[in-house]
């Protein structure tokens, strides 16, 4: 086979004589035998998701607290993060390369910038939905503005904040699959190695889907654990 990339040959080597593999089919035997090769990309993918979401969360939180104190900043922050959000991700991975080179940094910068709008908006909404009388009662009892924020407003905004985290995480799992274009590896790079081979695409893609689902369940579990009051009803 002329023109077949080296990597492609590499991936098919074990069990390569199989007719299923030869016809680019979905081959359980091959998958069982080769599943090990996906662990490293999967870990990279976890890394490409958790780190951007964590950094994005920290930045969004800082911005949201700033905007909570100075309301006029909300508009500009939404506009700027909205522009980041609107840049096609693949374009961002390429555009950033002259600045940050090929690799993790480029992927991180792009992925973080996508989470900002989502998380920022949810934190802001959560803080705004805290009833005025609750804040009034808090101030009236002598809580300082900082105590009102950390003991009342943010805890009460947890459901919205967690909802934002879930969306941001799912989105980032998906976008991280394109981080291969920034040279950052992840499950996307596995798909790209042999995108005609169904077994490969299904396993790599499937793992990304499972990863997104797992993250979602984890965040949901954390949310339930830290908001017992949400389930308490008379």
């Amino acid at each position, binding site marked *: 086979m002329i023109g077949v990339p080296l990597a492609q040959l590499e991936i098919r080597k074990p069990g390569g004589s199989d007719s299923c593999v030869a016809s680019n089919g979905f081959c359980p035997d091959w998958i069982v035998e080769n599943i090990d090769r996906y662990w490293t990309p999967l870990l990279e993918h976890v890394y490409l998701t958790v780190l951007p979401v964590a950094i994005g969360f920290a930045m969004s939180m800082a911005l949201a607290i700033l905007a909570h104190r100075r309301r006029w900043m909300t508009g500009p922050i939404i506009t700027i993060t909205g522009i980041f959000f609107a840049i096609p991700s693949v374009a961002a991975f390429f555009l950033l390369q002259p600045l940050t080179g090929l690799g993790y940094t480029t992927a991180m910068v792009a992925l973080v910038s996508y989470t900002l709008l989502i998380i920022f908006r949810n934190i802001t909404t959560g803080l705004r939905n805290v009833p005025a009388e609750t804040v*009034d009662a808090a101030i009236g009892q*002598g809580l300082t503005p900082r105590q009102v924020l950390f003991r009342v407003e943010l805890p009460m905004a947890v459901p919205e904040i967690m909802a934002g985290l879930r969306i941001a995480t799912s989105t980032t799992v998906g976008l991280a699959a394109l981080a291969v274009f920034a040279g950052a590896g992840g499950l996307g790079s596995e798909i790209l190695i042999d995108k005609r081979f169904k077994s490969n695409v299904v396993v790599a893609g499937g793992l990304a889907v499972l990863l997104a689902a797992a993250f979602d369940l984890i965040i949901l579990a954390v949310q339930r654990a830290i908001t017992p009051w949400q389930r308490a009803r008379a």
Partner: protein
Amino acid sequence: MDAPTAKSSATSSPKSSTKSSAEPLEFRAATKRYPGSEAPAVDQLSLEVPAGEICVLVGPSGCGKTTAMRMVNRMIDITEGDILLGGRSVRDRKPDELRRNIGYVIQQVGLFPHRTIAENIATVPRLLGWDKARTAARVDELLELVGLDPQEMRNRFPTQLSGGQRQRVGVARALAVDPPVMLMDEPFGAIDPINRERLQNEFLRLQAELRKTIVFVTHDIDEAIKMGDRIAVLQKGGKLAQYAPPAELLMYPASRFVEDFVGSDRALKRLALQRVRDIDLWKAAPIRVGTPVAEAHAAIADADVPYAMLVDEGGRPQGWLSDRALTGERVTDDRRSPAHPILELDDVLRDALANLLSSETRYGAVVNADGALAGILSLEVIQHFLQVAPTDSPTGADLLQE
């Protein structure tokens, strides 16, 4: 500092171990002006609230009553004038620290939904750094004080409580560190009428025990009359129209505005406010069977009613004696009409009047706690009472205490 008792002489001994403090509060030409608005929201408000009394700020919406209240704990800052709490200006104190020492109750309660009832009540103790054991003990004590079962309530969340229970928790929370002053902004405004009445009564009972200095805001004149030791009627522009005890306010409205605000039925409101014991009753002529008739006639002559009341050995009224009973040598048991209605000294005047109006006789026999005849109530007595100035008018809180 000592908690001076209110003007009522009857002060109950506290039932619980709750030691209570109270401080006097004084508005000194306190004024609030908002930037960009010509007219002040509160205009030169001057009034004194003695320690341990409830001062109700009442008036139509936009009269500045809530603003005036919120100036006390500096939720709203004073533009001119001053407010003194226990003789010290609130302006000299850090707002956060000031507020921790002033109980704060609002209409919507504003419990923290993400905190349990115990945690909600422990808000200020926690801010003041109380240890866990002391806080927990205080929480239970307060829950009991407001009539909630600590065992059952402690670990619930606010959404699991009824409106009335939430308001009780709000009061408990405000009392947590035994503040000398409490601010209450329409605390029972969101509660249905039946439960509101119950909460009002419960609160008055509590106040009779705790004797806090309270600023209570309402738009409801009936609530003001019921809750207040003193009532400050405010009118548009934050001007004080009158500051007086309830009975005096009803008796002598200082202006047309106050007169309209308290309503054309202010005489009836006074009747609802006061009890039979507050009135100068007519002197009766209690006569036992076998009394010499001459003596009976002398008693009748001395009494304010031209009829004698037959009483038993214990002085309990049995019925009005007929003329025939007084004709022989000694009084015989011959009655013209039964002793009906029989009223008690503790009856609310309005109820006594209703009894009197629906009975056949013009005179009601009033009995004391032992059932013995204490005097006679008539329509004339009530009418006269409504025309003279109230002297030492008792208040809702005093009445409930008895």
